[in-house]
């Protein structure tokens, strides 16, 4: 699954550590999500959507095969 974590974080001038703190996860998790190596749980996705003040589908894009 693709996501816009990196772009949205950069737009807000946040570091990975800032975002990790806001979402109450480790920095490693943010790195893995940004690199697309890890798809977050639904609850974390909702948390991110709330934080970025955007709908989930504006942050995460499902693969074309779905």
């Amino acid at each position: 699954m693709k996501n816009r974590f990196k772009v949205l974080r950069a737009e807000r001038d946040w570091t990975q550590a800032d975002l990790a703190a806001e979402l109450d996860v480790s920095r490693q998790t943010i790195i893995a999500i940004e690199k697309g190596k890890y798809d977050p749980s639904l609850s974390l996705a909702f948390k991110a959507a709330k934080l970025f003040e955007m709908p989930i589908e504006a942050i995460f894009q499902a693969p074309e095969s779905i």
Partner: protein
Amino acid sequence: MLTSGFNKYAIRYLTIKRVSSARLTLGKTKKGNDMNDIQTKKTNNSIAKKSKRNTKSLAIWTSAWLVSLAIVAFGPVLLWDYHQAISLCTIGLNVIMGYKMIMANKQHLEDLDELQQRIHLVAMAMSLGVSIVFGAVYGLLESIRLVEFQPDPSGVLFVMGISYAVSMILAHRKYS
């Protein structure tokens, strides 16, 4: 005249007060943002703090369990000449320390974030699988006369620990 002068000062005072109040509000907003930053750092600390606290607790109880295990192993030989009551007491103490260690480990895992939990889950699955496969074959070595010695069950613990550590490293590399 006096009243008019007073009014002038009163108006000026009120204006200054309004302006300072507005500045104060702006300051508060800025302060609010700063507070958000502080809150952010606090939250950051909260996960780091939890991890630190849990690691410390796990280290303490693991050390206590190891010490109590050493007492169970060497105490009868070196200290109390196989006195059964004392040995039973030390075994009881060892079980309590073991329980505390297990609970500390459980707490440590529960407080990890979802990716870290997944990494540990993968490592535990690998470790369990490797230990079962290794343990089963290792137990048969003597009965099928491939080795002369009686296989030591503690060997499985080493395999478990090593496979867990290797799996943790691999999983960390996968997600970083």
